[in-house]
């Protein structure tokens, strides 16, 4: 089973775990991305996530399908949240279950790495000093936009 979604409300993490776990699975893994209070030494107050909604949904689904091809029998539920998130809020949840733990763990890692590489979602960090900036993981330092 595969289910992926871009959502704007809080992610129901226990529901995702239940969704992938079955009597035929022996290992369930969960990966959560959460909003950190400090990034690159700056105090973060929140993160605004924005997406190219239609393509982000498609790309996320393609990644889950690739995971299922690579890790046969894997069960996957992924949600990525967009909108304004506060500290410790869950931005992404990846639940994976498989009969065997190695496949579950490897599939989970594959999904988060591909998601970060390919899914058209962006984050704008808001700082305690009032500035905000779009994060560019490919740059050493993102450009600062006065808020």
């Amino acid at each position, binding site marked *: 089973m595969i289910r992926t979604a871009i959502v704007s409300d809080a992610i129901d993490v226990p529901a995702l775990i239940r969704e992938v776990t079955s009597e035929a699975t022996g290992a369930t893994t969960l990966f959560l991305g959460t909003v950190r209070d400090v990034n690159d030494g700056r105090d973060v107050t929140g993160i605004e996530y924005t997406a190219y909604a239609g393509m982000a949904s*498609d790309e996320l689904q393609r990644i889950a399908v690739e995971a299922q091809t690579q890790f046969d029998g894997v069960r996957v539920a992924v949600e990525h949240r967009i909108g304004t998130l506060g500290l410790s809020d869950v931005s992404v949840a990846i639940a994976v279950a498989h009969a065997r733990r190695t496949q579950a763990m490897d599939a989970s890692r594959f999904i988060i790495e591909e998601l970060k590489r390919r899914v058209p979602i*962006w984050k704008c960090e808001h700082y305690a000093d009032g500035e905000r900036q779009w994060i560019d993981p490919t740059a050493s330092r993102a450009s600062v936009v006065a808020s």
Partner: protein
Amino acid sequence: MTQLQVLLFASYADAFGANCVSVTVAEPATTADVVGALRALPGGHVLPMSPLVAVDRRYTRGDVAVSAGQEIAVIPPVAGG
């Protein structure tokens, strides 16, 4: 010549001051033509040498043909997760 709509996001949308801009390109047009036309607009300096371009919600590689019926987007470095 034809007019194409281009979707912009995040830092690119900020730089161009819009989520969607029109560019005028010669037919038959390619993604490189679209990027070139964007670069000439105010804000176009933020585009890297070869920005990611998606057509119909899929990444393209190299220079590919585009037409008015397609959904064209120029994609800043992604930062999901």
